[in-house]
């Protein structure tokens, strides 16, 4: 028996649309991103999204091991999503499980269309997504961070990938479900977009929704992704801008 028994809140969303954490239905949780945090990796990003803490690292293009996995005409994209044992309220048994194998797969496929793999034949690009603290929506946080890590590694890309989840709580369609809504809500849709052309690279659905609710959910996801995209771009620019400003300040 776990020490902390989680209970469903009496009200997940009030009649006037106030959620358990005080947000309105369209509000995102606060997002903070930093790029280039790991000096040993070719590219990296650290992301805080609500209570989520995600570290993404990219290695590559590099030699493929084992060698027989190398593809003659393009790079091999590998992705590992992993949750730290201390990322959940109860200790998570370390190592890959059914869920993390699936998430590795969907994150890989969400990033795949964004990368010009054919520019790096015979090599491997390895993406690691480490969840340090989880608080609902870790897969979309992982995709968002991993895409920045790829850009930071200088891998040729069609554009950045931004992901966000939308859910249904009773009759409300809500953006960026929190832990309670994830646990006891009625439906959950993680979506990833290749931002510049708004192509969808990830779309999952669990829980029932009407056609109207689904359409609205996609529309809201697209709007929320626009906001997150701005944060991503700012994070990529920041290190370069900081150096430029520092030089200006020194008066050189």
């Amino acid at each position, binding site marked *: 028996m776990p020490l902390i028994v989680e209970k469903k809140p009496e009200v997940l969303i009030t009649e006037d649309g106030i959620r358990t954490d005080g947000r309105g239905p369209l509000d995102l949780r606060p997002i903070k991103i930093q790029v280039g945090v790991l000096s040993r990796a*070719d*590219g990296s990003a650290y992301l805080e999204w609500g209570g989520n803490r995600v570290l993404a690292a990219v290695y*590559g*293009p*590099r*030699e493929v091991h084992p060698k027989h996995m190398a593809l*003659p005409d393009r790079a091999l994209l590998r992705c590992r999503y992993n949750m730290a044992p201390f990322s959940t309220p109860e200790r998570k048994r370390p190592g890959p499980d059914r869920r993390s194998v699936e998430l590795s797969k969907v994150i890989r496929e969400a990033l795949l269309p964004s990368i*010009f793999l054919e520019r*790096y*034949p*015979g*090599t*491997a690009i390895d993406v690691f997504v480490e969840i340090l603290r989880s608080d609902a929506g870790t897969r979309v946080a992982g995709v968002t961070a991993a895409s920045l890590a790829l*850009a*930071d*590694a*200088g*891998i*040729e*890309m*069609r*554009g*950045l990938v931004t992901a966000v989840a939308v859910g249904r709580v009773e009759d409300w369609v809500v953006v960026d479900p929190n832990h309670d809504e994830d646990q006891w809500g009625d439906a959950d849709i993680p979506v990833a977009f*290749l*931002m*510049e*052309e708004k192509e969808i690279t990830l779309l999952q659905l669990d829980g029932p929704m009407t056609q109207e609710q689904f359409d609205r959910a996609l529309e809201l996801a697209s709007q929320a992704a626009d906001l997150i995209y701005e944060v991503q*771009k700012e994070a*990529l*620019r920041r290190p*370069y*801008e900081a*150096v*430029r400003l520092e*030089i200006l300040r020194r008066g*050189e």
Partner: protein
Amino acid sequence: MKPERNEPKILVANRDLVLPGQALAVGPIRPGDYVYVDKKGVLRSTKVGLADIREGEIRVVPLAGSYIPREGDLVVGTVSKVAGNTILVNINSAYPGVIIPPRGLRGRARAKYNLSPGDLVLAKVKAFDGVSSPLLSIEGEGLGKLVGGRVYMINPTRVPRVIGKRQSMLMLLKSKLGPEIIVGQNGVIWYNPKSLKHALLMEQVLAKIERESHVSGLSDRVLRLIESSGILDSQGSEAGEV
């Protein structure tokens, strides 16, 4: 109404910081390095870099990325393995370099190929097809094993800045910090400093170039750093020395 002139519409300024996917231009202009054309005909960047607009062409000068060999490149690498007649060289790339000694060499010409793991070599990329290992050559003056000196690893995208326009930066470094500097296109820089002070200053200078390469006026800042260090006079010799 006048017929619309078929002019490209450029959406960024020269030397703007651009991000992957960012629209650079629309219309009849040639996409250069690290630029692709999307389905609607918009030219977009594939990397984080600086926009470089030229007559009839737009390209991106990358600020991040690893080394992809090109034929004719001069690279500095470490011998990683000697297997029979082939010598494998780590050239800081996804593609390991290979040196194959030409047949029929004797005497001193053959001795050049007596390399063992850990040796530092200066080599030229002779052939690279984009898939299999690039073939390196150490035939030629100055090529081959590098003895002594130090190595500094810099991001390969910064190599053009370490060399500078018409080698201006490299000449500056050579005149101030000693003539023995070799800049590999793969981002491996070999240099043989006169003293530890020179070596430390060289490291500082290269770190500065790596960090500040995207801001113009780099040569001036580097020159100021070297002069303010106080360990050199204008001749490049030790200050206080007669």
